[in-house]
């Protein structure tokens, strides 16, 4: 396993409408829509680029420093 990126995407599941836009645009295929309810990034795949956050129509994604 490679090293995790310093930043990653965090989804607010209350705001997420599970439209799948983030999964569509994520260049690493990290985003997954869990059972049609909310989006969730696979931590190992997310590089924190923020492309998903820019496209999310519900503003449900923030890119944060990994804790």
């Amino acid at each position: 396993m490679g090293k995790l990126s310093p930043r990653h995407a965090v989804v607010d599941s209350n705001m997420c409408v599970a439209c799948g836009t983030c999964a569509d645009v994520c260049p690493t295929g990290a985003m997954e829509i869990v059972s049609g309810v909310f989006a969730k990034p696979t931590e190992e795949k997310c590089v924190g680029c923020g492309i998903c956050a820019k496209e999310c129509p519900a503003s449900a994604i923030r890119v944060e420093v990994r804790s």
Partner: protein
Amino acid sequence: MKKQQRHWYHYLWIWSIIYFSLGFVNILFAWLGLISFCLPLIFAIGGGNKLFCNRYCDRGQFLRVMGSQVGLSLRREMPDWMKGKAFRYGFMVFFFAMFFNIIYVSWLVGSEIQGIQEAVTVLWTFQLPWNWTYSAGITPWVAQFAFGLYSLMLTSEIIAIAAMLIYKPRSWCVFCPMGTLTQTICKAKYVPTTI
């Protein structure tokens, strides 16, 4: 960055253009709009997922293509109230009330209580003449339902395009009645798994 692989379903946005064009020629094609009502429900009820939204929805793709690829979107931030549950659920209830009203009016026409209206009503207000798409001989309630469904599809497409132009490309998906309904069904079916 890795270029995403294209699949056949990435081109389903073309269906949006075909659908509205067909309804301009013959209103009976409007019945095909029921596909957009049935498929998301089949995925949500049968599979407990939003695969229709996530992969197969022509409208979602059309908004992405026009907003992102063609670059028509101003990408403003949507106001919070539009993303809120009250607006999303309220709009869903209103939209489906309008859908059931179409069925009711078709029933009135079928029962000969009311005559057919050969018009498309946009935004529940403006009546556009559409009579060239209808020829006598078609069962009146069948044509009435087609006019009603086409009106609803066109109205929602106009709102979706307006939202795409002003806000982010797929902003319509935040308050799309089908999207809200299928997410509600998926939530009801969702059993969280422990990791």
